[in-house]
């Protein structure tokens, strides 16, 4: 514990922050909870929980179109949340479409490309470390249009093979869609280079920022990225909401995705005209309370400071990797030089789920399995990994508990 405390130079008040997360104040199987499954979903601070409760107890109402007071309040709060999230990623508010989450956002773009831009023989580039949510939508689109899905290979270290990527760019490629940060390996991909290389050939880029959003400052205009998708629930916000960022010109060109209320300008049975983006892509009653909760979440993160969080988590990740490496039987899956969030490993020949069950018995929550990246598991020839993934409220003490927990598991598994 000496070293542990000594390590935290950046964020001495992390215990105060932990107090803002009610869920962390519990025991699981008789031990204080160590929550290291943040890659799957993060916990929510009271600020977020309270914002949502205030909505339902104070001004719940459907948005847009209403003249009455509650409807005005709800609409203002919903649109204010859009501004907050836009500010968080350095976008204009009208470039931010509220979606159900990252998966919904990627599907929106894939469906639009299917409808408007993909033709037989065209290509879509993804990478070998993508989450199923950035694979299957493109498979569905390509299948329908007889287009081809091309995959950037992953090196043994768990990085993208950028030379091969360079060679893959050709005029048939209609879009490049890759993860900013790998949910399984923790690899931070060189997204600036990827964007520059694709743009040099006139190809747009979508970034799956699901695993970047809680760990890295995002500046979409600086990045010059064309589309970016993320989920609130992985940034301390509620389930059921996320965003698609799209450059204005792209949102104008992209055909509407879902039809329904709110996304129209005028409807007749003969002809319907659509609202301007972002509303053009927000059919039906939106996830109002969730948007407001999302706004509160990015406000929370902004107030703590994403740069500070990044520095703290970087320190914590280095500590975790170093400590885990002291376990002789442990093998890291993914050893990128640039990493954030997730740390995947295997213990000797032990099945990840056995390790997960024994950690859970000790109150330590990690994720085991393929992490929705089955092709990547095939690449590394393992049935899955044990994944510890960090958030701003984790501490070196959590890491120590993890390491001790793994050691105990190793002993038990023999």
């Amino acid at each position, binding site marked *: 514990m000496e070293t542990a405390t000594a390590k935290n130079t950046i964020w001495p008040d992390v215990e105060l922050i932990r107090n803002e997360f009610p869920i962390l104040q519990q025991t699981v199987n008789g031990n204080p909870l160590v929550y290291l499954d943040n890659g799957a979903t993060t916990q929510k601070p009271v600020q977020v929980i309270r914002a949502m409760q205030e909505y339902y107890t104070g001004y719940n109402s459907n*948005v*847009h*179109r209403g*003249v009455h*007071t509650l*409807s*005005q309040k709800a*609409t*203002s709060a919903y*649109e204010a949340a859009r501004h907050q999230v836009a500010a968080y990623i350095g976008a204009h508010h009208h470039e931010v479409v509220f979606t159900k989450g990252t998966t919904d956002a990627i599907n929106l773009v894939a469906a639009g490309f299917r409808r408007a831009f993909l033709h037989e023989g065209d290509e879509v580039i993804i990478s070998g470390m993508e989450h199923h949510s950035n694979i299957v939508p493109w498979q569905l689109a390509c299948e329908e249009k007889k287009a081809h899905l091309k995959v950037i290979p992953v090196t043994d270290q768990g990085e993208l093979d950028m030379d091969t990527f360079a060679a893959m760019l050709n005029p048939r490629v209609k879009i490049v869609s890759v993860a900013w940060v790998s949910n399984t390996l923790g690899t931070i991909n060189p997204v600036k280079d990827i964007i520059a290389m694709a743009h040099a050939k006139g190809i747009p880029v979508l970034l799956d920022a699901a695993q970047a959003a809680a760990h890295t400052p995002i500046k979409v205009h600086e990045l010059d990225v064309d589309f970016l998708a993320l989920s609130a629930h992985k940034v301390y916000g509620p389930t059921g909401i996320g965003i698609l960022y799209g450059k204005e010109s792209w949102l104008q060109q992209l055909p509407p995705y879902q039809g329904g209320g709110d996304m129209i*300008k005028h409807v007749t049975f003969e002809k319907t005209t659509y609202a301007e983006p972002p509303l053009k892509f927000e059919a039906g009653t939106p996830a109002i309370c969730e948007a407001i909760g999302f706004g509160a979440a990015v406000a929370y993160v902004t107030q703590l400071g994403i740069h500070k969080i990044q520095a703290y988590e970087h320190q914590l990740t280095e500590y975790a990797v170093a400590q885990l490496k002291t376990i002789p039987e442990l093998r890291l899956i993914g050893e990128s030089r640039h990493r954030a969030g997730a740390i995947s490993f295997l213990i000797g020949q032990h099945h990840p789920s056995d390790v997960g069950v024994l950690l859970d018995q000790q109150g330590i929550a990690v994720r085991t399995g393929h992490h929705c990246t089955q092709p990547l598991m095939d690449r590394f020839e393992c049935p899955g990994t044990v994944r510890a993934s960090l958030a701003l409220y984790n501490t070196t003490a959590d890491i120590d508990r993890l390491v001790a927990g793994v050691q105990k598991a190793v002993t038990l598994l023999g």
Partner: protein
Amino acid sequence: MTIKEQQDNIIADFEVFGDWMEKYEYIIQLGKDLPLIDPTYKTDDNLIRGCQSKVWLHAEMQGDKLVFTADSDAVITKGLVALMIQVLSHQAPKDIANADIYFIDAIGLTSHLSPTRSNGLLSMLKQIKLYAIGYQAKSVQQN
């Protein structure tokens, strides 16, 4: 009168009202009084479509002043349109372009100008300013 004087006048007028009913009675009356826009100007080009009500707005230069006529299909919107025109019509484009519109707030009708109200009023104000900026640019070019 300057735009500022017009606004201060309106604020003073509203101060005498005891409750919301008197206030709205007055706005409704204004809505009924507003000289209708010349029907030839009630075109789709001049239409500002709010989700709730429609506003038509026509602008033309008379001498060095910008003159607005307008209409709405909802009488309360029309009354508010009338106030807006009382303040901003017959003014120099430059003054309109630079005007700080504070009277709506001051008379307690902020919500009618909110972007969420979708009665076309905010869009109308934007359009008025755009006209003013346009005519201002033109007059600068011509000088």
